[in-house]
């Protein structure tokens, strides 16, 4: 095992004359420039660049670190969910090349999560002992930290060498992304019940959809009826998570909040949005079939 790991971390030199091209993110496996990968890479950097631009232009307000770290944290969880969405998308769109983007997006999520921690440290004026104490003491930070450590482990073992070295165990190790995503969403819920939970509930709904899709028997995963059934399941799941959250964590009338999901004249609540997004999936899958 140890030897295999070492071999993976330090792959043997290629035969002379065939230098391995440096794996820049915009190159495909053969080392050629790929528009798809280049565009994905640029899109992954965009939110960070936007926040950096806001910071430089004094657009983040009087608490720039705090507001910036929240914005970056949002992108960490969004990209994590997107990473999980790559496989179903590649399958439903019958577009296998999409799957070659998964590693990059996952590493993007890790990058934003690390930046998020660094900005938290900056907001705490880099008082490292105090920061360690807070992470140990505050539950929502502890689980964020656990999630981040696990993400770092997945990022570290994301290279071709590690994939080869770990073989089938690699797959099992990388199933950790599911508890990581769940912890990330939990951290999202916990961090600020005082402000709205809108996007946290949406994230919970989307994560549920992604998990339900994997739980479908393999033969059903492209079945329009099964996909159709997943939409209300995701919406209901998100609504129940939201209900449980308010019922257990606050004195607010959780039943009223649950009922508000039905009052679409009032607004489309996040659980409803999760259902709508999920409904788009069979629609897009059908379109794709018609196009063939």
């Amino acid at each position, binding site marked *: 095992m140890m030897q295999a790991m070492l071999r993976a971390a330090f792959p043997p030199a290629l035969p002379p004359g065939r230098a391995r091209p440096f794996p820049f993110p915009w190159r495909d496996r053969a080392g050629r420039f790929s528009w798809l990968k280049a565009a994905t890479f640029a899109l992954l950097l965009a939110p960070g660049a936007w926040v950096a631009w806001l910071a430089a232009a004094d657009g983040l307000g009087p*608490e720039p670190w705090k507001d910036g770290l929240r914005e970056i944290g949002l992108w960490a969880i969004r990209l994590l969910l997107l990473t999980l969405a790559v496989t179903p998308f590649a399958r439903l769109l019958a577009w296998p090349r999409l799957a070659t983007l998964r590693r990059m997006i996952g590493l993007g999520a890790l990058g934003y999560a690390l930046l998020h921690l660094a900005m938290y440290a900056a907001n705490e004026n880099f008082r490292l002992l*105090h920061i360690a104490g807070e992470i140990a003491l505050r539950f929502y930070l502890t689980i964020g930290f656990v999630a981040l450590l696990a993400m770092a482990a997945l990022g570290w073992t994301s290279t071709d060498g590690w994939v080869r070295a770990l073989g089938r165990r690699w797959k099992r190790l990388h199933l950790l992304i599911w508890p990581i995503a769940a912890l990330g969403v939990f951290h999202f819920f916990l961090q600020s*019940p*005082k402000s709205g939970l809108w996007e946290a509930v949406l994230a919970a709904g989307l994560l549920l959809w992604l998990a339900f899709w994997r739980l479908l028997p393999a033969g059903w995963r492209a079945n329009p009826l099964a996909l159709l059934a997943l939409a209300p399941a995701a919406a209901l799941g998100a609504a129940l998570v939201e209900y449980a959250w308010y019922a257990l964590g606050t*004195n607010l009338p959780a039943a*009223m909040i649950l009922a508000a999901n039905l009052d679409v004249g009032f607004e489309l609540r996040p659980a409803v949005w999760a259902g709508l997004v999920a409904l788009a999936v069979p629609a897009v899958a059908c379109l794709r079939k018609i196009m063939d």
Partner: protein
Amino acid sequence: MFIRKRRGWEIPESRVTPEHLVFGRRAALGGLALGGAMALANPAPAAEEAFNPGLRNMRYRPGRDVTAERNATTYNNYYEFGTDKGIYRAAERLPLRPWTVQVDGLVDRPREYAIDDLLQAMPIEERVYRLRCVEAWSMVVPWSGFPLKALLDAVGPQSGAKYVRFETAALRGVMPGLRQSWYPWPYVEGCTLEEAANDLSFMVVGAYGKKLLPQNGAPLRVHQPWKYGFKAGKSLVRITLTAERPKSFWEAIQPQEYGFWANINPEVSHPRWSQASERVLGTGERVPTQLFNGYGEFVADLYAGLQQERLWA
């Protein structure tokens, strides 16, 4: 033995410059500078000219620089208008006139004040206070207003009155936050009658020498600077003296995180973060938080017999 503790603003008689000299000169200088600048630059709108910010009360020294006005007026919590900090644009829609404030409950002379009559009737002065938000940020603002005590005296609390309940505006048409009907609107805050009668309890009607802006709680806001900022109810419409302790908005939602007393104490953490220090808005600095936000000399006595209460959350 009777030991009289000297309060922060009390300095030996001999060292005091007669008040009228200080205030007279300041006012004259301020008036000159302001008036001159305004005459040269754009003429101020009539409403601003009409506003009297009062003379600065030199008892209360913040010990820090005043927060940039732009920061204090664009970084606000006002849940009726939205849950993010940038609600100042949405809050512009709050109609500030006509506005009435009802003062009632266990008082001898209940009264409904038109806001402008109230401003006329009360002794307006300026105080520079530190404001510490429960979210561990703080600012320093020159507020204009009057001591809550003056209003209490005007209506005459009855002997049964123990608490003061502050009720804030809940205007369906202009406040999108109210559509989340499961929150216990209107936003209510409260304190004990003794706290209300304390010198520090201030009814704010202006800031930075101007009329108060909606995002800061126009036209009338309560501010007790030794308590976390959420106690400082905005856009008040009703002040009621009661015998029962009022249930405040956040206390009703999450009593384990936001209590009735909410006095500032660096040693008592919020369940989700430390209160030991605070970021001073717009400076990038983090400073230690002080017990009672540094106003202990004015208010610590209020809590002498109340150790069994949850004073710090």
